[in-house]
């Protein structure tokens, strides 16, 4: 892949299956035809449009070539940007990442260190917001125990489960646990030392807490409330660190929503 020829802006929408391999197939297509599509849509975004739509089938071979090309020609940092940026929940992430990759292959890996270039700034912005949210959830996931299994529900904007996976597997290695991302219908399941990350078709819900579980939740709420210093209440500060959208899944704040 190289960008000797100028890119053509095409009035065309690529549709793909929403997977990373599918996206890399789109990247392959875009490079092969030296064109920048008007948009790249995952299945859930398909809508009537004036532009012609082109289905891009997921091709593991092509995806693999793109993956290797990124790693070998652009380096591990760019590979990470593509992989983490792709977890973003932002609607136009695919196009942003595609522009980033065209810049890298067109002008060489050095161009990707020009953090002030719009293509680079945008891609790194995606990464930053995904990582910010994942970091928040490392703290904000709340498990409830039921029959020896720990379960948690979250509603993130981005697909954070792949980033939470190593963290919680290290932390709760000897436990059975699941984290359900209700916004994207994905579940991270760790059972008997084995971990799976998969889509679910029907929404999951956790069982009602039993007496012991309720007691621990009460203890935690009490601890949380005791820590606040009455005269220093500062809602704005709390909101910056812990925006309201997280509250519904937090044991200690749920009933203030």
């Amino acid at each position, binding site marked *: 892949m190289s960008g000797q020829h100028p890119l053509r802006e095409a009035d065309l929408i690529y549709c793909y299956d929403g997977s990373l391999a599918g996206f890399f197939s789109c990247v392959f297509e875009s490079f092969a035809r030296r064109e920048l599509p008007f948009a790249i849509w995952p299945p859930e975004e398909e809508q009537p449009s004036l532009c012609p739509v082109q289905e891009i089938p997921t091709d593991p071979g092509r995806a693999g070539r793109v993956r290797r090309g990124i790693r070998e020609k652009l380096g591990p940092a760019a590979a990470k940007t593509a992989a983490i940026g792709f977890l973003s929940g932002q609607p136009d992430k695919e196009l942003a990442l595609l522009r980033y990759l065209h810049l890298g292959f067109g002008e060489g890996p050095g161009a990707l*260190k020009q953090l002030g270039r719009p293509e680079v700034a945008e891609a790194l912005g995606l990464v930053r917001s995904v990582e910010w949210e994942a970091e928040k959830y490392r*703290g*904000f996931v709340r*498990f409830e125990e039921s029959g020896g299994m720990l379960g948690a529900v979250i509603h993130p904007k981005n697909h954070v489960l792949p980033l939470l996976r190593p*963290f919680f597997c*290290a932390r709760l290695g*000897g436990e059975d646990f699941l984290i359900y991302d209700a916004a994207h219908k994905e579940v991270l399941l760790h059972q008997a030392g084995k971990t799976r990350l998969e889509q679910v078709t029907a929404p999951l819900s956790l069982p009602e807490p039993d007496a012991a579980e309720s007691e621990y939740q009460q203890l935690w709420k009490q601890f949380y409330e005791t*820590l606040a210093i009455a005269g220093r*209440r*500062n809602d704005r500060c709390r909101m910056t660190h812990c925006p309201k959208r997280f509250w519904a899944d937090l044991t200690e704040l749920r009933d203030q929503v």
Partner: protein
Amino acid sequence: MEQSVMEKLTILADSAKYDVACTSSGSGRRSRAGGLGSCYAPGCCHAFTADGRCVSLLKVLMTNCCSFDCAYCVNRRSNDLPRATFTPRELADLTIAFYRRNYIEGLFLSSAVLGTADYTTERMIEVLRLLREEYGFHGYIHAKAIPGTSPALIQRLGCLADRLSVNIELPSESSLHLLAPDKGRREILRPMGQIAAAAAASREELTLYRHAPAFAPAGQSTQMIVGATPETDYQILRLTEGLYHKYSLKRVFYSAYIPVAEDSRLPALDTKPPLVREHRLYQADWLLRFYQFRAEEILDQSSPYFSPYLDPKCGWAVRHLELFPVDVNRAPYEMLLRVPGIGVKSAQRIRTARRQGTLGLEELKRMGVVLKRAQYFITCRGFTGASGGRGSARRQQIARALIDPGVFNAGCEQLSLFSAPAVQQLAAQGTPPRLAGRLVQEEAVQCLANTL
């Protein structure tokens, strides 16, 4: 009647809460197969209190029954308040239950002096032993060493904890003597020295034998109370700098004194906790640790107090206007760090990006560099600096950008505790808080503008 765990937790969390904010982390401990917990290096906030502080650890006292009588402390022997004591098992169980639910990153265990220092420490050790040995807990543990504890017990505590701390309590010997008659400076510094030496020895052993037991791998920290005694900011900062060097401390924490008792040796009960001062100390401490500043660059004998209106880095820059503006495409990294408004992350991004081509304002903005204050101190491609100095309107504009907007009670009908002392004074004399904030802000702007 036996107290319930709920009652104990309420009392013992309450007693511990005035202890500084967020103190997690510092060590990356790898989890072991089948065990519970890992220690996560950057520190992780699990919740934020209504006042906006990070909750990272289960921070409680083992007991608040104290045989000492430190004047500044709510738990002092002579104070009448509800008392409680956890059994080691109760506390270990609670820690595990909270940790498994991801409420916390670990345990921060402190204690009042139950009988003797050694007896108290033995009970603390028992909690840690249960956690580490019986429950196989690898999460983070920060334990406070009680002044006067015998060296052998400190050694044992350090082998179980990730971080140890000894509170220096007050910034000078004479203050300590006056207010904490049961504790001597030596009693505090001896364990500090012991911890520093043991940690250094253990690091050395670890390089030789990978499985040598680690002694407080996250290092030690300390804490002091600010505003109960007459030390200046400069004295406190010098002390801090000395502690970082001499005892290789990882952190020094400051806590604004909140009056707890009518006592002629202490500030009056209606004194407001000096939160702005505490905040400035943390900022200056940050400059010492991450921005390569020395204490005497920040303050000195002739100006020993922080300005309530300027953060210390800005304060330094206005006193050194002759060094600015700097060219972001050329200035050494150390100098970038000294530009008001440019933090470590921005400076690093600039350093990376400028290797690939010269930067202009547009690039800086896209990289996330905040220019509100920085614009007066930098030049870059196509930009010769918004540095002012001519015309009083211009100077005022700069001053307005530089002063810290957080301390003027902005837009609040109620007086915020974070407002500058002058705002609080005006408000106490009957000026409505919002107006008081605006008046003081104008005055601060004028005053700063005149010096530019």
